């Protein structure tokens, strides 16, 4: 059918990124419905649609198409982070700060060293580490540990938006995922600095932490300023708000990249400011949701198209081992953290479910490793991508099941809505 569509009277037509966009929207919507019928989150359907249509699936989309569609990612991440910030009300923070702090602390202090140890223990079976001395392998193992700590704010937010879950688990997930996103940055910078010194012989630069702290502080300040600007725009602009959100999303992303700010943090703070310091929070949420319906399908389907099936095929035994190890450590770390925080039983029992997912943040950091440490980084990135592929598929399902077991899904919804509601919309 598709081949027929793409051959007008014997003339081969590719369609380019616009066709790919449309195809992903349609395929994502169809697979989202199928996933919903199979009692899975729609997001899983979007990912599967992307995997099947992607360059390593049926190759309906080529690598260039996927690259071109990544333009949508900036907008999707902006919308996700804005909504995340808007969900973080002062009341939510008051209720959850203790739980969030302990959970983040226990995950950081348990997952990073244990996953690094596991990596070191399995290093003999990874050929790309041959030739490195023990200290260098340890340095790479620490990077692996930090990468294992990364979560997917996008997936967490998308699931919360799709299911419209409300309750302690949902609130806790939101707070931790945002905090961990910030905590990972200095840890990753430190691990990279050590590894670079060990493998490439570059001196350890303490100043990078000062720069990082400056950037994070500047990101918070910029987020506050942008939040006030967004509120002002919402006050002035009454009609074309979808257009406004699109423009603000791309504009602030471009500015943040230019000024080297943490884009996600900027948007989260901006959303937080609009919701908590102005009266336009509900307007922002409504407009973001209106805008995000189609954007989210493309975002997650594109993420699916990027899943490296070849890497997964080659590395599946070791990837599977790391996947299970990370999941088990996440469960343990979360239980420890929630017991220390004296959380309600439902959070103690199911508090790990939001943190299995990994996606763009992890792949982004792995790409940095590949650039900075070309000798081992590329192979390491391939392994990361293989593990992320598993986490990406399993994470949304586990989190949705967790929300269902916690009884935080709206009464009219079984696990996710079986109607025609689309994620984000």
């Amino acid at each position, binding site marked *: 059918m598709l081949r027929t*569509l*793409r051959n*007008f*009277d014997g*003339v081969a*037509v*590719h*369609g*380019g*990124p*616009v*066709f*790919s*966009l*449309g*195809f*992903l*929207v*349609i395929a994502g*919507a*169809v697979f989202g419905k199928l996933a919903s019928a199979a009692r899975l989150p729609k997001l899983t359907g979007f990912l599967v649609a992307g995997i099947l249509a992607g360059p390593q699936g049926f190759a309906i989309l080529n690598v260039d198409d996927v690259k071109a569609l990544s333009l949508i990612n900036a907008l999707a991440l902006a919308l996700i982070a804005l909504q995340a910030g808007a969900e973080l009300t002062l009341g939510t923070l008051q209720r959850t700060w203790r739980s969030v702090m302990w959970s983040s602390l226990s995950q950081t202090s348990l997952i990073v060293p244990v996953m690094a140890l596991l990596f070191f223990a399995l290093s003999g079976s990874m050929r790309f580490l041959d030739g490195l001395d023990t200290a260098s392998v340890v340095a790479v193992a620490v990077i692996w540990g930090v990468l294992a700590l990364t979560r997917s704010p996008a997936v967490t937010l998308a699931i919360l938006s799709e299911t419209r879950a409300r309750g302690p688990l949902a609130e806790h997930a939101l707070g931790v995922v945002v905090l961990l996103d910030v905590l990972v940055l200095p840890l990753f910078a430190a691990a990279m600095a050590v590894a670079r010194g060990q493998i490439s012989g570059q001196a350890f630069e303490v100043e990078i932490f000062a720069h990082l702290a400056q950037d994070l502080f500047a990101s918070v300040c910029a987020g506050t300023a942008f939040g006030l600007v967004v509120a002002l*725009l919402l006050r*002035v*602009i*009454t*009609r*074309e708000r*979808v*257009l*406004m959100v699109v*423009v*603000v999303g*791309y*504009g602030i992303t*471009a*500015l943040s990249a*230019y000024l080297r700010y943490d884009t996600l943090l900027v948007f989260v703070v901006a959303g937080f400011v609009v919701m908590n310091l102005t009266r336009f929070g509900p307007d922002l949420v409504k407009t973001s949701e209106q805008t995000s*319906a*189609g954007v989210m*399908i493309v975002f997650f389907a594109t993420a699916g198209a990027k899943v490296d099936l070849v890497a997964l095929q080659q590395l599946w035994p070791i990837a599977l081992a790391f996947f299970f190890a990370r999941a088990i450590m996440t469960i343990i770390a979360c239980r420890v953290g929630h017991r220390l925080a004296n959380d309600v039983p439902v959070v103690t029992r199911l508090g790990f479910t939001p943190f299995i997912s990994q996606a763009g943040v992890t792949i982004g950091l792995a790409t940095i490793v590949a650039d900075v440490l070309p000798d081992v980084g590329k192979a390491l990135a391939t392994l990361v991508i293989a593990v992320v592929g598993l986490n990406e598929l399993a994470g949304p399902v586990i989190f949705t099941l967790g929300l269902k077991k916690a009884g935080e899904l709206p009464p009219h919804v079984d696990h996710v809505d079986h*109607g*025609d*509601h*689309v994620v984000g*919309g």
Partner: protein
Amino acid sequence: MSTILVLLLLLSIATLASRPAALSGLLDRLLTPLLIMLGIGCAPGGLALLSSSLVESLEPALAVGVTWLGILIGLRSASREASRQAGRADQGRASLRAAIVVVSSTSASVLLAMAALTAPHLLGLRRYDNAPLLAGAALILGGALVGSPPIDRDNRIELALRSRLIDVGDLIAVACAIVALAILPPWSPLPPSMAAVVVVGSGLLLALVQRLLGGSANGDPATRTIALLGVVAVGAGLLHDAGLPSAVAGLVAGATLGYTELGRVLRAALAPTERPARIVVVFLVGTMMPLSLTSLVVGGLLAAGQLVVQFVATSWAVGHRPSARVLATGLSSSSAPLVVAASYALAGLPEGELLLATAAVAVVTMDVLAAAIGLGTRWQFPAGALSTPPSAAQSTPPMVVQR
């Protein structure tokens, strides 16, 4: 930084466009000309705020935008709600008169367009260099610009006549654009007749796919909109790549859907997307059109010709000289000419960019003329105009003059 500049520019436009108080009266009526001029100013040939590569990279966005608007125009053209308000006898008489008005004004408009398009030849300017291209361009421009003459709301026959004219108004643009496909010299890999068949077939296929994916009229609005977004992008991508005008397929799809119950629901659901889409499309047209003396001359002549056509057709239809308000409403352009011309230009029609620039000049001139004629009167905007303020749209009773 140019990307940021464009975004900030669009933000400013959205801000101004949402503040009718700030843009009341004349300025609001001139929003299309202002957007076109803004686009020309920002383009690489103007102040060069936008680089050539950036403008080129925005082409897919324009392809999606014109197809989206094509569907919306098509949906509107199939609206028959107004005609229910008149009696059968009135409708019968009105249908006959409407047919005469539409056929005669369209013919006159196309002939005038053909005359205007030959003017550059007489002046020694760049011109459409062969007969099929000239005839096709005349059909595209003449058909899209004429719309349907507005009728004052004096009696029941005029009301019925007006609703009949609305029914067929934008369909003229659809029909002319399809006929033009078969007349124009071959430029896509397909022969002209096959190109016309493929475009019409694609439009029908898009409507069918939307019907299948978008669910019933009672289904979820978000699903319908997302399905349409997918359908539009797939159609625009494939047709654009095949060198065919995707907006024409969109017009066909919209008109087909418009006659179903789903179309009525879609029309209401998509109405809020029309204005932002128009803002973006008109601005992008401004950035991409190469302004030349030929386009200025032909566009100006086309606008003047439309003034005559509108005056004569309306006078004949209502039996007396039309008021300035009615004439201004009729002359104020819809976005159909820009949408159809942009689509042909994107498809790679020879002299397609000249066609787009000519349509843009004609639209701008018509809007300026309408603003001048309607100065001091409370004239309404046509249904597809960019400058419809919400207050006017809300207060407009269903049978008030619209195009």
